[in-house]
């Protein structure tokens, strides 16, 4: 839907784009629907366990979507961390809680909150007309010669690895990645402290 809007906007501007990247394929459309439905179900599910499981399904749908949008590195992370690890950790934590029985499957909708979210959605939807089509060669993020194209053309010569994403993470932005790795490390220590444990296993 978003890509179609953007594609029509680009087409109206007279820019030629490859038709295959501008169209939403049936698989992408069904994935988008799946993601929206699971996101709504996550927000509305009465039972926390059900919400966690549906949230895992949402993450898996997002991971598949990233694959179709040619971001396999992000897809791998989303599938491994969000769909897998986070779901397991949430389930483990839920097992520590007392479960309340619910008659209804869904929460009653909080209408002011829904209205606020709807307004935000409408506001964001208006901006989609100005977003370049997914995969458009004219998208600024892709077509600028100084950043994206430089990394894509020079990465192998400079670093010797083919995966530009990894080169950016480990070399060009290596200091940031060091910070991220230390954050993960600190998260482990923080969990030990919060849970008053001295050993992991």
């Amino acid at each position, binding site marked *: 839907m978003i890509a179609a809007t953007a594609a029509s906007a680009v087409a109206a501007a007279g820019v030629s784009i490859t038709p295959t990247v501008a169209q939403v394929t049936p698989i992408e459309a069904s994935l988008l629907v799946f993601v929206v439905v699971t996101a709504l179900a996550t927000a509305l599910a009465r039972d926390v*366990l059900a919400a966690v499981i549906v949230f*895992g399904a949402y993450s898996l749908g997002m991971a598949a979507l990233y694959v179709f949008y040619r971001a*396999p*590195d992000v*897809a*791998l*992370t989303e599938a*491994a*961390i969000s769909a*897998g*690890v986070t*779901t*397991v*950790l949430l*389930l*483990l*934590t*839920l*097992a*520590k809680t*007392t*479960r*309340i*029985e*619910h*008659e*209804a*499957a*869904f929460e*009653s909708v909080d209408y002011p909150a829904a209205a606020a979210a709807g307004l935000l959605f409408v506001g964001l939807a208006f901006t989609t007309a100005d977003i370049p089509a997914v995969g458009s060669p004219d998208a600024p993020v892709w077509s600028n010669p100084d950043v994206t194209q430089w990394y894509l053309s020079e990465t192998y010569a*400079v*670093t*010797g*690895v*083919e*995966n530009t*994403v*990894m*080169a950016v*993470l*480990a*070399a060009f932005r*290596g*200091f940031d*990645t*060091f910070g991220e*790795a*230390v954050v*993960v*490390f600190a*998260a*482990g220590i923080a*969990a*030990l402290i919060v*849970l*008053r*444990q001295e*050993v*992991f*296993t």
Partner: protein
Amino acid sequence: MSDASEPDERRETIDAEDHVEGTSPPSPTSRSDRLGTTPQQGTPYTESQVIMSTVKFVSPFALTYGLFVTFHGGGSPGGGFQGGAIAAAVVFMIAFAFGIDATRRWLANAVVVGLAVGGALVFATIGLVPVALGGAFLQYDLLPVPVLDPVKYGMEAVEILGIATIVSGVLTGLFFVLARGFNRDGLDASAVSRHANDGTDADRGAHERGEP
């Protein structure tokens, strides 16, 4: 858990109109203790031949895939972060199939701590050696590597020995720490007494099987 608290009852009446169909509430004992954790820092665990056989079959491939994603991050999608997470997920699978406590005994704490601390030390060392040699942090081309291309293999070392080890160690550790919960002389005394009489081991096992 027949003791539905008062705020909950109030909500039930509110929701009575959009109640879709008459789903009879399941028996309390079977749904109260989802993943089956008991107070004795343990997980009641029911052997399942299906789960155990599946995990036995799948986990070598999953671990290999995690190592592939880690080691081949320079040439294909992936890298240390994703590969480390997949490797940690293998431990999760083993724990769900063979019991968290059994896996806890099998996996020494020194291994988990060693992975996390060792990864951080390797990353910091690779970053700081060029600084010591007069360069910038993580300036790979100053690494004193004799034969290999220091840039490429310095990056691979950071991904494989640094990030992947930190992520796999910390995620595995988080899993076991969260599975145990609060330290026993910590805050869980009331939760312990509340859970003590709920459900049977078989029920818990069934739910444990149902989760990923």
